[in-house]
Structures are given as structure tokens and as C-alpha cells.
């Protein structure tokens, strides 16, 4: 069989360069499999070869989307690949966005791409139409099951084998509708489905209704000098020592902490509990994540009516959408009761 060339895209962590302190590194290209590429090499069909690995820091990629895309795009082109594999990224948000972007870059070049992500990764919603995304667990502990699934789909694509449905193959729906011939006509299938539904039995829809959960923009506030503004963050700023032990990732709770009488957040009093970014800058000056100093100044000048005397905080690192929604619902409930009309929410 003809040899097929595969390029792998991974982040600084899986590229064995470093953790968050190395998340700023620019793209680099290597002409061999690295990290998950080593395991993938053994799982891919014999005629597939990982000819190169491109590594980029998660923060660099997301903060410099255009430059990173251009550089990584050129690096991919230089390898002249038949397919690109990105990740898997599991539930890492920045990594998922980077892998999704790489998938789109490859797609735009006419090169197919495969990745692996947890269903809640923001990269899924943004990029699933451009590449095959294998559904993974929410942490890298699922690497052992993710790699064979990715290798299987990659092998099918490069060798031109027919691709099954998302449910059959284990990838996330790309939103493509395909015409197929089936035994029973539509009316029969619909009645069968309805009967199963009436009997309370399991049935599988042929076309899931897309869920669009959007909230209408709130009415603008004409005069902020009359309202109370509250600060909320997913950047994990907490009082020094993290008294409520908010988790560094997959947070199960949020905190509410007083800023009454404070002109700003100092490194003596506050720190970050977030495990998903380099904490040096936030620990040094926590105002860089929760801008109490700037809002206090604006309050004194009368630009805003009042700064709410507490800020709310959680760690938005691999935290489930369900938990984040629950925290915010509770926070919003309190804020409404307190008469707060405006919120500045900061994320890292």
C-alpha cells in the first residue's frame, strides 16, 4: 500500500516542553513523532507514518491566533501530509480551540484532520464541522481509549475506507446529512419510532433537534452612575490560602469574598487557585484578573454608582458546563436580590 504521511499537532505539555510556565512558546516543528505520536504510530495502519510533530504553547496559540495559524499552516504545508491529527485535547479549552483551528487550517488546504475532545470542550462547538473529533473523556486519563479511536478514523480516511455514522465510529457529529438507502420507507420508520416512544421504549432519532440555548442581550444601562456593579471571575482569585479550597481544576464550588473598604487586591491578601494558567502574574497583582482597583477609582469618581462589596469567584478550568451554570444561577439570584444591575465577568 502507498505510504501515507501524517502530521501531529500537540501543545507544550504533550510536546514534553513544560506546563503552564511554557504555554507561551511559539510553534516549532519536528520531523518525528513526539508524545502521543509515539503511541499513535503503533496504532495506525502499517502504511501510515507520522512524518512530523508541530508543537505550540496553548496561550501563544490563542493569544496570537492569526500569527499562530499562519505559522502552523506553513509548517503543515512543508510536510505535505495526507492527514493531520491534532491533540487529543480532552477538556482543555485553549488546547481544544487550538486543535479545532488546526483542523480548520488543514480543511482549508484540502487536508482532512482528526482530533479528540470531551464533548464540552469549546473547540467542539466552534470547529466540529471542519474535522473528525473523537469523543473522549474529560481528562488525559482517557488517552488509552482515545488514541485507538483516533488511529482507526485516521486510517479509514487516508485509505479511503467508508466512514460510518458518528455513533458507529465514535466521533462527534459534524452536522453533515448524507443520503442513504434503507429497507423501510420514512413513514414506516416514523410510526415505528412513535410506537416505541408511546411504549416508553428506547428509540433513536434520525435527526436530533439542534439545541440553541441563547440568551437575549440585556437592555443597556443608560446611566451607570446610578447602579451597583459586581465583579465575578472564572479566573480563580481567592483570599490567600484559598480558605474554601476551590479546586484548581474541575471546580465543584464558587466563593464569595468581601472587598469592602479595599482599594485593590494585593498579593498579601489574595492569590489565584486556578490551575490552568501560569499563576505568577495573578499572584503578583490579583487586580490583573479582578480589577478592584480600577473599579474603586471609578466609584470614587462617580462613574459607577457603587461597587458591590463582594466578588464571586470560581475556577474555570475543566469545570463542567453544568457546574458553571449552577454556580452562575446561584450568584445571579443573590445579585438580583441585592439589587445589582450590572456585572463585569472576567476570564483567564
Amino acid at each position, binding site marked *: 500500500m502507498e505510504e501515507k504521511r501524517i502530521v501531529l499537532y500537540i501543545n507544550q505539555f504533550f510536546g514534553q516542553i513544560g506546563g503552564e510556565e511554557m504555554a507561551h512558546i511559539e510553534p516549532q516543528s519536528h520531523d518525528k513523532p513526539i508524545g502521543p505520536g509515539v503511541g499513535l504510530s503503533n496504532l495506525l495502519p502499517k502504511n501510515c507514518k507520522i512524518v512530523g510533530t508541530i508543537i505550540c504553547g496553548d496561550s501563544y496559540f490563542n493569544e496570537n491566533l492569526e500569527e499562530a495559524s499562519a505559522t502552523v499552516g506553513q509548517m503543515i504545508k512543508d510536510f505535505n501530509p495526507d492527514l493531520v491529527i491534532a491533540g487529543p485535547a480532552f477538556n482543555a479549552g*485553549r488546547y481544544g480551540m487550538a486543535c479545532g483551528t488546526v483542523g480548520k487550517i488543514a480543511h482549508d488546504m484540502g487536508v482532512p484532520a482528526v482530533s479528540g475532545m470531551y464533548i464540552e470542550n*469549546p473547540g467542539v462547538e466552534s470547529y466540529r464541522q471542519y474535522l473528525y473529533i473523537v469523543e473522549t473523556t474529560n481528562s488525559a486519563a482517557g488517552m488509552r481509549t482515545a488514541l485507538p479511536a483516533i488511529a482507526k478514523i485516521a486510517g479509514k480516511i487516508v485509505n479511503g475506507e467508508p466512514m460510518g455514522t458518528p455513533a458507529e465510529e465514535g466521533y462527534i457529529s459534524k452536522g453533515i446529512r448524507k443520503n442513504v438507502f434503507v429497507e423501510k420507507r420514512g413513514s414506516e420508520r416514523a410510526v415505528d419510532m412513535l410506537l416505541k416512544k408511546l411504549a416508553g421504549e428506547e428509540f433513536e432519532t434520525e435527526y436530533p433537534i439542534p439545541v440553541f440555548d441563547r440568551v437575549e442581550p440585556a437592555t443597556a444601562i443608560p446611566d*451607570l452612575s446610578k447602579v451597583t456593579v459586581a465583579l465575578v471571575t472564572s*479566573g480563580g482569585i481567592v483570599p490567600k490560602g484559598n480558605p474554601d479550597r476551590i479546586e484548581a481544576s474541575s471546580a465543584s464550588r464558587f466563593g464569595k469574598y468581601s472587598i469592602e473598604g479595599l482599594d485593590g487586591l494585593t498579593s498579601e491578601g489574595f492569590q489565584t487557585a486556578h490551575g490552568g494558567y501560569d499563576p505568577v502574574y495573578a499572584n503578583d497583582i490579583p487586580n490583573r484578573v479582578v480589577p478592584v482597583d480600577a473599579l474603586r477609582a471609578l466609584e470614587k469618581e462617580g462613574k459607577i454608582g457603587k461597587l458591590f462589596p463582594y466578588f464571586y469567584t470560581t475556577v474555570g478550568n475543566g469545570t463542567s458546563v453544568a457546574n458553571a451554570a449552577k454556580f452562575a444561577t446561584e450568584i*445571579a439570584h443573590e445579585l438580583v436580590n441585592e439589587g445589582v444591575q450590572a456585572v463585569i465577568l472576567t476570564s483567564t
Partner: protein
Amino acid sequence: MVKEIERAGIAVVHICTVTPISLTVGANRIVPAVAIPHPLGNPKLSAKEEFGLRRKLVEKALNALSTPVSEQTVFED
């Protein structure tokens, strides 16, 4: 989180660096930040300059709150 706060009827502005994620999660008023580990700061600046930068970003966020929008809006410079 932004969406649930807005659902409760509170005007909310999201300051964040990775604006595509903010768009995905359904924020309606979005102000791009400086960098992921320091969204409202820049360690390369002097303390005074950095405070000025932060204040400007916060003012931009307040401006976003007082601007009527009918769809998801990223408040670029």
C-alpha cells in the same frame, strides 16, 4: 456563567482573551483582554501605566454595558 447571569436579567460584560470561546458560550457583550494569565494587566508596564491600561479596559467594559446591542458583540478598539 455569563449566560446564566444575563438570563436573570442582569446586564453583563465578559472581559476575556480568547473571544472565540466567549462567543461559543453565548456572551453578548465581549471586551477582548490583554493575555490569558493577566487579562487586565501587563507585567511589562510600570505600575502606573499598568493601572491606566486596566482602567481603560474597565471603562471600555462599562461603555459596553451602556451600549444597546441586538446580537453578540465584540467591542474591539
